[in-house]
């Protein structure tokens, strides 16, 4: 049985294409059942996120199965295959395993190391399990992918640093204030970046938000959005001392906050630290403000610098993660190969034969008055017993041919008779989650 992957991602397709082939998470039953109903396809999991749409499946016929999955993606979304084809990639066997392990470990993400993808794959797998489109191989495969992702997360620092400006701002604030839950964020002016950063702070959990704007109505509107308090722009310096984290992005052509005012503000708040993030171009805050004790000023460029160096660090960590993935592929691939019917029958037969030989030798070596043809007859007798016992499982395996149940039987046989299976240390029952 082979694992194949067909799909497209942010690396091969623009968002216009990706949204056309996306599957709605509320209606996964239909596509999943259609995929497993395809000839040659035995199991399937569909992963659909805003950055990728992928089908993981098992098949006997790699070329045929891959072609059918591609055709399915086009047909299901009523698209011409010729249009879709150039954006699609496909992997099989080791490459497919590598791909899924890398995706789950967030090595294939747009922002390497971002944590959402693992949860998204878990959800997708949940649908496949619910609608029974995944079986013994994909079950084990995805659980393995989850544990690889977990290993990558704990053994490397791939996800430990902020790689967006907004997150970097939150991380920095934590290094200054420790706990943010009793801190107040103030927005001066408005702007996409400013609001995004404010949202990140709110999600992290801050005490409150204050909003000020040159036009008071604007401030009121934005304050409502953030469940905050509007402040009149003229009162800025009467209120500024109440804010711990200040996000500033006004369209003012000159500095709004200068050292002279800040000296007074910091005194009023008894020198408690303040963290300024100046997002405006031209800048709102005089860089000399950074020279005041307990005031920390960062501009967008500074934050970008933080993000870039974090990205560099992630690259180093990603190399370590790739090594982990390679290690795990080998192990899983061995297990997968062991599910083949013929080698299993041979192994089973050898096991029985071993036992028969051993027991026979034991009897013969102590049996003194053995009749002349005794040995021959005993040989025949024991061989017949073994053959009789082996006949039903062997023929059943050959009969059911190649399908989901065969894998189940093969796996069971290997476990029951202790036939050596690579990766046995990760038996189904031991898998977490």
């Amino acid at each position, binding site marked *: 049985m082979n694992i194949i992957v067909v799909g497209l991602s942010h690396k091969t397709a623009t968002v216009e294409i990706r949204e056309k082939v996306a599957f709605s998470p509320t209606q996964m039953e239909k596509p999943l059942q259609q995929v497993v109903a395809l000839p040659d396809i035995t199991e399937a999991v569909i992963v659909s996120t805003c950055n990728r749409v992928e089908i993981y499946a098992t098949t006997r016929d790699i070329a045929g199965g891959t072609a059918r999955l591609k055709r399915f993606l086009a047909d299901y979304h009523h698209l011409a295959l010729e249009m879709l084809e150039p954006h699609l990639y496909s992997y099989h066997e080791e490459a497919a395993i590598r791909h899924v392990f890398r995706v789950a470990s967030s090595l294939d993400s747009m922002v390497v190391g971002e944590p959402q993808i693992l949860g998204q794959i878990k959800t997708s797998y949940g649908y496949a399990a619910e609608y029974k489109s995944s079986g013994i191989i994909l079950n084990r495969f995805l659980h393995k992918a989850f544990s690889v992702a977990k290993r990558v997360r704990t053994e490397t620092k791939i996800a430990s*640093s902020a790689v967006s400006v907004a997150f970097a701002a939150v991380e*920095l604030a*934590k*290094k*200054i*204030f*420790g*706990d943010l839950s009793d801190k107040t964020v103030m927005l001066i002016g408005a702007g996409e970046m400013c609001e995004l950063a404010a949202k990140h702070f709110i999600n992290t959990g801050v005490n409150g938000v204050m909003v000020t704007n040159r036009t008071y109505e604007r401030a009121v509107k934005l304050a409502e959005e953030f469940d905050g308090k509007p402040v009149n722009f003229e009162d800025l310096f009467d209120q500024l001392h109440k804010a711990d984290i200040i996000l500033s992005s006004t369209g003012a052509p000159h500095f709004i906050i200068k050292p002279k005012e800040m000296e007074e503000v910091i005194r009023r*708040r*008894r*020198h*408690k*630290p303040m963290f300024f993030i100046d997002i405006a171009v031209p800048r709102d805050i005089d860089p000399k403000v*950074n020279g005041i*004790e*307990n005031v*920390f000023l*960062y501009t967008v460029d*500074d934050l970008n*610098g*933080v993000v870039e*160096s974090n990205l560099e660090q992630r690259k180093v960590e990603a190399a370590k993660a790739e090594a982990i993935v390679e290690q795990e592929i080998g192990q899983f691939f061995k297990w997968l190969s062991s599910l083949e019917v013929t080698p299993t029958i041979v192994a089973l037969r050898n096991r029985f034969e071993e036992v028969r030989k051993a027991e026979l030798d034991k009897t013969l070596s102590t049996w003194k008055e053995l009749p002349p043809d005794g040995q021959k007859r005993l040989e025949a007798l024991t061989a017949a017993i073994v053959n009789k016992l082996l006949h039903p499982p062997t023929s059943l395996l050959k009969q059911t041919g190649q399908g989901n149940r065969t894998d189940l039987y093969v796996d069971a046989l290997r476990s029951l008779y202790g036939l050596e299976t690579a990766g046995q240390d990760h038996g189904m029952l031991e898998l977490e989650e």
Partner: protein
Amino acid sequence: MNALFFYLTLGLYFVATVAYLVYLVKPQQALGSAARWIISTGFLTHCAFTFDRYLEAGHTPITNLHESFSFFSLALVGIFIAFDRRYKLVVLGSFVTPLALVLMGVSTLFPANIAPLNPALKSKWLFFHTTMAFLGYAMFGIAFGAAIMYLIQSHMLKNRKLGAMFQRLPSLDTLDDINYRCLTFGFPLLTFAIIAGAIWAETAWGTYWSWDPKETWSLITWFVYAALLHGRLTTGWRGRKAAILSIVGFCILLFTFIGVNLLLPGLHSYK
């Protein structure tokens, strides 16, 4: 037996310090907990050493420089372990254990023999006065470590040098909090130590205060920390300013402890 405990402690402190310093470069959890175990074991053998010596001498063993340095180190490690439980901050060890190790090391430079105690000094005040003084010293020692960490961290934040060290050090708020806590514990301890000393001096020497160099410098130390505490409570001195004052205060404290004994002759210069 006594020497065995002593050198065992010294060895354990050495290994713990190395572990804590390596942790600063390679922060691995296993290393952190190993360091914690080693320093805790060292603390136990150190207690054993001190108690054994107490039994042998028949009084609190802080009557010569060998014992004093060792006791300072003991108090520092003890307080560090307590802070570590509260803040779960392994890196604090990277800044505090070296100090404990140095104190222990310096202790070996002085003769370890137990000299008979001046009968006038035989009093329960010996225990109170010295123990409180050294617990106070230890508190300020921790504040010193946290202050150095604060200065490094705030320097990196101000200059946007957000490297590996920045990641490892805790938030400015945590460090300032440690500094404040040390001050609120250390200052009363130092105050009581001075008061206990005065009472003891009255019974032993017949006068509460004799402007002995140790007394004078203790008072100077006390004033520095009093100023810091006052500044913190009234005008909101914090952060860098508090950190710098903690470092200055600790340097004066070290002079009060070592310099006075070695350089300025007086009633307290037990050697």
